[in-house]
């Protein structure tokens, strides 16, 4: 795959109360804030992917690209 834009993180980390009596070891939680939430309006004055790359990525705009690699679940990867 081609390069991934280093935009601000699309992942938020949160923690929930973990009791000393909870049966399973704690897990850090993440949720995704996709770029459509942060920039709700498209404008034409943005940087664009090359046409073929845009077709594969599903968007013309790098700023609206929201990758979801397997590691994303852990929040490490963008």
């Amino acid at each position, binding site marked *: 795959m081609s390069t991934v834009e280093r935009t601000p993180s699309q992942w938020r980390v949160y923690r929930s109360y973990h009791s000393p009596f909870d*049966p*399973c070891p704690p897990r850090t939680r993440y949720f995704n804030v996709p770029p459509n939430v942060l920039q709700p309006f498209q404008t034409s004055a943005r940087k664009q992917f090359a046409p073929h790359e845009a077709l594969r990525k599903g968007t013309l705009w790098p700023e609206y690209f929201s990758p979801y690699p397997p590691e994303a679940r852990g929040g490490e990867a963008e």
Partner: protein
Amino acid sequence: MKAIWIYEKKLQYPVRVSKCDPRLAKMLIEQYGGADGELSAALRYLNQRYSIPDKVIGLLTDIGTEEFAHLEMIATMVYKLTKDATPEQLRAAGLADHYVNHSHALFYHDAAGNPWTATYIQAKGDPIADLYEDIAAEEKARATYQWIIDNTDDPDIVDSLRFLREREVVHSLRFREAVEILKEYNHTKKVF
């Protein structure tokens, strides 16, 4: 009818889960959103109050409210068993189908994944029919707790489940007493 609920931020009976066993959550969810589960029980009884003779309205309020307390105990058990599980662990526990729809969220469905439906409960407007339905519901809930207890060897969660099972026994008894009260209506002088 005027009703007010006061929420105390604690469980009716302590819930301690000692064994990391997400598999058990899949069975416990039967008592969360299943036909004979606690949500069904609470909604069934609280709704029947409006058309039942005055003498048993308070009983339905008491038991219906207690069922919500039970619902929170079940939710706590399910949450404790699943909140830290990875998707892989949930898949191994047979919860992949839950995960694709709800991730780590709880939802009102039964152990087989059927969503909760109002067709699980009834209000016939006939006091005897309604109370007999309630008695049957309590016996079915008691049986469900037995079958869940049969599927775990965690002594702490079994302790909480035995408490819940015992409450079904008591609720059934109190509904039977309500039937006796209604029978007595024959012998009282009615003033219209």
